[in-house]
């Protein structure tokens, strides 16, 4: 269930319209607990986390970037949607390390061949040059 649907559903649970009157179906505490449960359930499957470093001797991040962590059947998928990069592994740290390696490989691939980039990779390179610095 999408977050918007969930909150619409919650609102329906919380109030029932009867003319101009509103009748509460859940107490404030029940409403709060239900909200917490839903947020926890979403966080178990999908998280957005900042990373401050590419774990590289050669490159550094000029500012933190936000990556997604998704969980499926014992695997962790780390993604950096701005350049459509992702990696998956058994643990969060492995998935994040592999994603960092992949971001660097993509950056190097594109800088080496910048005259031959299609429209999409050209945009990725512009963005990566804004966020990656060379030591």
């Amino acid at each position, binding site marked *: 269930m999408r977050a918007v649907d969930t909150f619409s559903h919650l609102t329906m649970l919380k109030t029932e319209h009867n003319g101009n009157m509103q009748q509460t179906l859940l107490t404030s505490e029940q409403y709060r607990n239900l909200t917490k449960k839903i947020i926890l359930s979403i966080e178990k499957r999908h998280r957005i986390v900042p990373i401050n470093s590419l774990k590289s001797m050669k490159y550094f991040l000029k500012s933190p970037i936000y990556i997604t962590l998704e969980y499926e059947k014992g695997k962790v998928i780390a993604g950096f949607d701005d350049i459509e990069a992702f*990696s998956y592994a058994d643990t969060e740290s492995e998935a994040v390390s592999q994603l960092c390696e992949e971001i660097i490989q993509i950056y190097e691939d594109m800088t080496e061949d910048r005259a031959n980039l299609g429209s999409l990779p050209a945009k990725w390179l512009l963005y990566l040059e804004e966020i990656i610095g060379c030591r």
Partner: protein
Amino acid sequence: MQIKKAEIEKIFGKLRLEVRSTKHRYGWFCFEGKKILRVHFSHGKGDIPGRVSDKIRSQLKLSQKNFKELIDCPLSLDDYVVILKNKGLI
């Protein structure tokens, strides 16, 4: 949609995507010498998680129907180029 690593290899062969080395986990789709898009590659055997398959489909810029056709063979390299041209990526 769940797919196997062998099916990804099949896509790589069909679209002539090249993985630079075993260290690399992606290949570039090139057209007339230009890098057009990048696709994740999984070394080894076995199934790929469903979310990963979705992300690969998204990297290829294909609908679910076309992605299935690419794996099952009706969609050729020429058809794929037409799709990318229609999307303004080539």
